């Protein structure tokens, strides 16, 4: 997993609340058994009309947001299905971090496992970033996980909170399974004391 330390990138706004993982990656793409190549299916039904043509009114299709690596969205982002394909598609599309007033639990966990940072800011701060992204051409933000700060060149600055272990994993790009397996003897001892109770 690539470490996340300090990242500066273009911001794309998607200012809707309760964006669910069915919207992020519609079901027909979950049948693939690969972990890569999901970017082209990101927000498929919103990005493309019934005929498959790109909808120019959808923000991610607008040239001004092309190459964006930071997504800013409404509250409860990533609610619904646990499909990690949602994160794979966002990451494959090029997003390194998502900024919103709140995130659904499973989605946020899935992000960490893929080196994608979820940044929780207040509704007012999110609205300010959305406004700037819409008004300022090629608007960029810097997300600094070392200092837990977000700032731009126009004077915006905000701190965010993240639990220390998640931050550590992202900063170092750690293999969590490897970390857990360091406690193999503890797991074995637990298993010896708690036998399987399935008949």
């Amino acid at each position, binding site marked *: 997993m690539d470490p996340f330390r300090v990242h500066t990138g273009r911001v794309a706004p998607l200012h809707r609340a309760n964006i669910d993982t*069915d919207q992020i990656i519609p079901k027909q793409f979950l049948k693939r058994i690969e972990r890569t190549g999901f970017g082209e299916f990101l927000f498929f039904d919103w990005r493309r009309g019934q005929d498959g043509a790109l909808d120019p009114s959808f923000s991610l299709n607008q040239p001004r947001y092309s190459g964006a690596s930071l997504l800013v969205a409404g509250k409860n982002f990533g609610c619904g299905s646990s499909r*990690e394909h949602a994160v794979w598609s966002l990451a494959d599309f090029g997003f390194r971090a998502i900024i919103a007033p709140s995130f659904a639990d*499973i989605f946020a966990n899935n992000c960490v496992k893929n080196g994608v940072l979820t940044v929780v800011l207040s509704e007012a701060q999110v609205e300010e970033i959305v406004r700037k992204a819409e008004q300022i051409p090629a608007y960029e933000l810097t997300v600094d996980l070392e200092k837990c700060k977000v700032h731009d060149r126009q004077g915006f600055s905000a701190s965010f909170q993240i639990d220390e272990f998640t931050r550590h994993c992202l900063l170092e790009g750690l293999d969590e*399974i490897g970390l857990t397996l360091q406690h193999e003897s503890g797991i074995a001892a637990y298993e010896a004391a708690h036998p399987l109770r399935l008949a």
Partner: protein
Amino acid sequence: MTNPRTLFDKIWDEHIVHVPSGRLPLLYIDLHLVHEVTSPQAFDGLRAAHRPVRQPQRTFATVDHNVPTEARGTPILDPIAGLQIQTLQRNCNEFGIPLFDLDSPDQGIVHVIGPELGLTQPGMTIVCGDSHTSTHGAFGALAFGIGTSEVEHVLATQCLPQRKSKNMLISVSGRLGEGVTAKDLALGVIRQIGTDGAAGYVIEYAGDAVRSLSMEGRMTLCNMSIEAGARAAMVAPDETTFAYVKKRRFAPQGRDWDQAVTRWRSLSSDPGAIYDATVQVDASQLAPLVTWGTNPGMVVPVTGHVPVVNGGADADRQAITRMLEYMGLEAGTPIEQIAVDRVFIGSCTNSRLEDLRAAARVAKGYRVSAKVRAMVVPGSQAVKREAEQEGLHRIFQEAGFEWRESGCSMCLGMNPDILQPGERCASTSNRNFEGRQGRGGRTHLVSPMMAAAAAIAGHFTDVRSWKFH
């Protein structure tokens, strides 16, 4: 003297393997359920790292999301879906995991067969790469959905590093009225606390209305808790729970059973246990509910109207306008005037025997409206067999419902059962998100009784005034 603890606290404490300094506690996982959609990349990860499955005997797999609900043996026409199903077969074979495959008499939706086989037991920690794993909390288990990376983590270590959620008590007083079901209670809770109202919490449901629910009803309630953002939901086990689990295939037997029940009786919150949030719900105030929007919190009584929004923030008004446009609804329309094209009775929320009995009771002696296509998809092969023994399939078929094979089906439309653009569906499933049941499809979430009544009437109708035959 320890502090009073909640049910969640007790199960959590019992399953902590280790608390590494500066890291998250390691939680032991008793039971891991696996299906075809969220597992292939996890098995690939194991192979890449040369890691075995640590506890194949605590891991059980089935195929449910992709499977056709036509007669078994019908070829799977979608080659990508077919490959995903074969991939699970290959992975289970390679890693020694029991699989309830397409031709198994035990195949079914993962959250239906776990309880049905007695795999789901009180006090367990249970995970699955599926958000509706919260269902199993109905037995007083700590059960939650995980992503594919976590599936790999559990396969490799039988543990998960976990941050402990907060405790929320939802106390439901009163009794559900005739024609008002656990589904309506679940939707009523989401309406009351919002689609992110329980984010960061594990819910414990308590109160008279919850105690009087069957296990099927409790499963429906816990199942839908993810739609309020909950990490998990649970109901303390009681005699209803023990009676359900007893003699099921994987349940403890004989002396082991007696010991298990003694242990399970301690699984309730201590008097004076502290919750971080408490919510009161009065079950007697609930009517049959119908969703009108594109998230499960957008719900009104069947006697109500599609809401008219005047005040509120611009963003909220825009969101509602967008929803109404997607749903093809006019503000102010009475719910009972909304006509449906399709009816789906099934899903991990409402496809168990009790659900099918309730729907059949409504359907008996009637005909499905000529304008409606209605299907019943039992949650498992076992549900299907039991329903057929009772003759429920004949009631449905005589009324003009399709009687199909078990699977997730039109809840998420990964198999061929999907809505066409613009089609409107009364569905007993759990999510009315845009496109969930098929691109452009319009989903209204309801109980099995309400769905059956809508199929016959051709529009939503209050099942409380239904004339049963």
